[in-house]
């Protein structure tokens, strides 16, 4: 296990491996996204009550699911960088924050568009919506804190602490707003018990969720590669890489 652990600490290795993963993950992601989108938007039956407007579920739910998961990715990467002083985990944490924030925004935005025809309003102070809004604030807080530090090493550590504090808080925030006021429907897809969504609608949704996970990974890796180049811009391997690109 240790050799691989050390390799993760090597920026050129990580840069190369991220590139290799992206080479096949990006096409798969695009394929899954297009398939899921076409399937969900064109080939699923329309819903009894909501008609066609429910179809935004194929963007809204995956974005929300991955936005939440992304926070845990960020916080765990932060924990790894704090505990094992692994610089590359720090890069991952920094790269995850804007991606997660963007997904949270997409979830809120599509939710608003969906809310207008179904609930008759763009925005309600419902528990899930409010906790997603707070999640967006938590992400933006991490981004803002990182930018405020001149010393980027300290910035990474401070953001790691902040995201861990946020991780402890997310269940509390979620439960407190849930208890506070709830209008949003409950979870339809459950790992245990009956799933209350018809298979013809469920399968494209699951495909879209998988596609969004892949999309998140792609965005994370692309972001990490950019961050690596920026951090290591004075090192030989980056110089060599860049000069090679110019020559080609």
């Amino acid at each position, binding site marked *: 296990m240790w050799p691989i652990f050390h390799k993760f600490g090597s920026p050129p290795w990580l840069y190369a491996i991220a590139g290799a993963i992206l080479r096949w993950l990006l096409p798969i992601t695009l394929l899954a996204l297009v398939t899921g989108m076409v399937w969900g938007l064109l080939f699923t039956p329309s819903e009894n009550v909501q008609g066609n407007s429910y179809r935004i579920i194929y963007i809204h739910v995956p974005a929300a699911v991955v936005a939440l998961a992304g926070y845990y990715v960020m916080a765990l990467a932060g924990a790894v960088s704090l505990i094992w002083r692994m610089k590359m985990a720090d890069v991952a944490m920094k790269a995850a924050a804007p991606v997660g924030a963007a997904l949270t925004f997409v979830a809120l935005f599509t939710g608003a568009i969906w809310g207008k025809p179904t609930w008759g309003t763009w925005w309600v102070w419902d528990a899930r919506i409010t906790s997603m809004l*707070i999640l967006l*604030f938590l992400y933006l807080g991490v981004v803002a*804190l990182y930018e*405020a530090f001149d010393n980027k090493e300290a910035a990474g550590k*401070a953001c790691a*602490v*902040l995201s861990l504090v946020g991780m*402890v808080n997310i269940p509390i925030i979620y439960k407190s707003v849930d*208890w506070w006021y709830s209008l949003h429907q409950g979870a339809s897809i459950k790992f245990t018990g009956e799933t209350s969504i018809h298979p013809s609608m469920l399968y494209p949704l699951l495909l879209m969720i998988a596609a969004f996970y892949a999309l998140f990974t792609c965005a994370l890796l692309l972001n990490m590669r950019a961050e690596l180049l920026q951090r290591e811009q004075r090192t030989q391997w980056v110089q060599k890489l860049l000069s090679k690109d110019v020559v080609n």
Partner: protein
Amino acid sequence: MTPPGAVQFCIRLLRRQLLLAVRRPLEIGNPLLFFAMVVALFPLGLGPTPETLAGFAPGVLWITALLSNLLTSDAVFRSDFEDGSLEQLLLAPQPLFMSVLAYIGAHWLTTGLLLAAVSPVFALMLNLPAQAIVALVASLLIGTALLSLIGGIGAALTVGLKRGGMLISLLILPLYMPVLIFGSAAVQAAVGGFPVGPYLAILGAMLCLAIALAPLAMAAGLRISIDA
């Protein structure tokens, strides 16, 4: 000479912080003055009819207390960071966990406790029903301690930055939200004649969790800020 133990050290630090605060009585007054002024803004903005004010009073009082706590949080570690005594504290053999608790304790005693103590006056000015005043004071006593602990995390993370003021609000306001929800809900329950105990119990549980975990985050934050 043997160094003092952790608890003794913590008590001495607390006394030092309180002594520093008492030497500048006007600075203790500032958050209270802020509290009074912001409370005065609401009737001007929402309209002075007693019914309107009574409806908004629980939320108004809680949000105002939260804001005055937020504004004072920024300064918890700042002066000791600037004169270098924080660095000495980090080098001390006593655990930082207890030391930061002393700072937060002093902060709460000089802001939260006093805010809770004067809150009945403003509650009456905002026409809050009398039966809710005990709930207001009790929820503020527990809630402001919780706010001080959370605010301390933001303060520890931003103490080394030149422009920390705005940033600390962005970091800790999202974390304040559960406290606000349960705090104002306790007061609202008292207004409606419902039992207040459950809300206070949840606030108390969150306080226990925060006492156990927040000092860890603060200690880590201070070490990062000093290193930077």
